[in-house]
């Protein structure tokens, strides 16, 4: 287990190390000054451990133990009522042959590939627009826009699922009515197998607000001198954006991408509310069968706890590989201030 969590452990720690802030330096200096006898050191350590004890307990009970326990469970047949029966790698064999697993993985991958780039690009566009409004002296409107972009984020996902079903309804939904006014014959977003994932991805854009706020904060930290220097060199808007803005906020873009990829792989609430439950059509079910929905149904619908645990492990490994790849790519693309290149 230790080896598997390793890349994840290393990831944020490394990201942390790359950003030595002024506060860090100050504290390090103080730390040296404050070095005292080992008795007070030990006492300080004991006090510190007392403060972090809630997390130590929580980590052991709700993180470490579940991970180990689910590794064991994945090797058993367990229906909650009868005792777990050890079956070796049977669950994993079944997983390899289960067409539903392949379907769920493929659906989830398709959704992630559509949703993540779309989400990041839209967040970036909105953040750039907001930043431009702020610098062009439209500060009065700034708060209104930011509120408008953020408020949808507060909507409970079940309600977002309802809005997806109603606004994106193929025959009388508002989205297709608007498309019709510009001569586009909108698809059946909620029933056509090939449009379910794009529909969900579009609806997810509604929650882009927090990413916008993160990127906007990064944009406002870019030193004005860099833009002035670029302007002196005759760089236009596009060139300044490409050579100054984007590299300077690449850390923020990377953060948003990683967090959102992990979330996209775990899509559940919106898709489950809209496409699973009484009266939802069977063919829509298949095309909205995302990985966590399948895991949920196997575990809590069929009470195949062992199989669900094995499914969770596969998801864990897939997400970790994807995150590790993103990190490896980011080493070449992301610029962190204060880093020696």
């Amino acid at each position, binding site marked *: 287990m230790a080896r598997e969590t390793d890349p994840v452990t290393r990831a944020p720690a490394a990201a*942390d190390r790359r950003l030595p802030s002024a506060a860090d330096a100050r504290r390090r200096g103080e730390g040296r000054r404050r070095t005292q006898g080992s008795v007070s050191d030990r006492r300080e350590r004991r006090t510190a451990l007392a403060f*972090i004890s809630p997390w130590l307990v929580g980590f052991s*009970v709700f993180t470490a133990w579940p991970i180990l326990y689910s590794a064991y469970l994945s090797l058993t047949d367990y229906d909650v009522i009868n005792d777990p029966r050890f079956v070796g790698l049977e669950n994993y064999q079944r997983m390899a042959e289960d067409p539903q697993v392949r379907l769920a993985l493929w659906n989830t991958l398709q959704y992630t590939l559509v949703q993540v780039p779309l989400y990041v690009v839209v967040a970036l566009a909105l953040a750039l627009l907001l930043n431009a409004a702020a610098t062009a002296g439209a500060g009065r409107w700034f708060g209104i826009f930011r509120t408008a972009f953020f408020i949808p984020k507060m909507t409970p996902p*079940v309600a977002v699922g309802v809005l997806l079903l109603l606004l994106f309804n193929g025959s009388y939904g508002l989205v297709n009515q608007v498309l019709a006014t510009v001569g586009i014959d909108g698809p059946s977003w909620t029933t056509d197998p090939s449009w379910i994932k794009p529909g969900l991805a579009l609806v997810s854009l509604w929650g882009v607000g927090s990413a916008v706020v993160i990127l906007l904060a990064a944009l406002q930290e870019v030193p004005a001198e860099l833009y002035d220097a670029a302007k002196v060199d005759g760089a236009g808007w596009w060139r300044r954006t490409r050579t100054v803005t984007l590299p300077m906020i690449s850390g*923020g873009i990377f953060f948003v991408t990683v967090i959102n990829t992990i979330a996209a792989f775990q899509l559940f609430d919106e898709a489950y509310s809209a496409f699973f439950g009484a009266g939802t059509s069977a063919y829509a079910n298949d095309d909205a069968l995302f990985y966590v929905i399948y895991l949920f149904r196997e575990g809590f619908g069929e009470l195949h706890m062992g199989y669900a645990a094995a499914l*969770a492990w596969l998801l864990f490994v897939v997400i970790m590989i994807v*995150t590790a790849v993103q990190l490896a790519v980011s080493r070449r693309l992301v610029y962190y201030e204060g880093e020696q290149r």
Partner: protein
Amino acid sequence: MRSASPRWVRVPVLVALTAFTIVFTYPLVWLVSASFKPRSEVFDNRLWPKSPTVENYLTVWETAPLALWLVNTLVVTALAATAVTLSSALVAWGFAHFRFRGRGPLFGVVLATMMLPGAVTLVPTFLIWNSLGLVGTSIPLWAGNLFASAFYVFLLRQFFRTLPREPFEAARMDGANQWSVFWRIALPLCRPALVITFLFEAQAAWTDLLRPLVYLQDSSTFTIPRGLKAIVDQFGTGGESQWEVVVTASVITTVPMVLLFFAGQRYFVQGIATTGSTR
């Protein structure tokens, strides 16, 4: 402000932002408007209802135990947010204020758990609560929060680290113990960060669907999103197509979150900006 862009940039930027503002706010406006329409008009997509009615609200109120669900959700939300704020503040202070061997690696573990997909621990965590006989109650929805949450520990630690050390050392000199230094000095100084944590978790607890689906069985224990899902199944996709009922219940589920946002807008924005820029 940054070096000013030319004035002519203002008009296209404002036009684009206004267009996006309409796109982002319209669904909520549509939802509220539809909740005041009779069934035959829900899909007419008019901004203002042709024949406005509060009938839907009366129907929803009679057919579903909404008041009970709202109270359930309020209790879970308050407990979840309070528990996570206090426990995470304790832990964050432990990591921010004290220097001890193993602090770096330990904090690395905190950060690592932040990246752990929640779906991975779903089944075993359920089995823990099941073995305690608590499945079916709302306790599993908040009690885990007593043990701090990595994300908030990270967030609060960022704030604690910006505090100067002097007041704390002076208080220690005056004979205050570590607990009162934390409780009387550090916490009040970090009020905004505590509010941010509380608001974030309140939003997460209020809107969650997956865990209520897993843990709650009897409709009298439902939180409002879980109840809304039941309403969607019964009145919407379930064949009767009484979407006006579903729409109205959606409004009732959403409004408290919109109010929460307006109450703490400044904190939401500041909190999110902090999570992104300090990484």
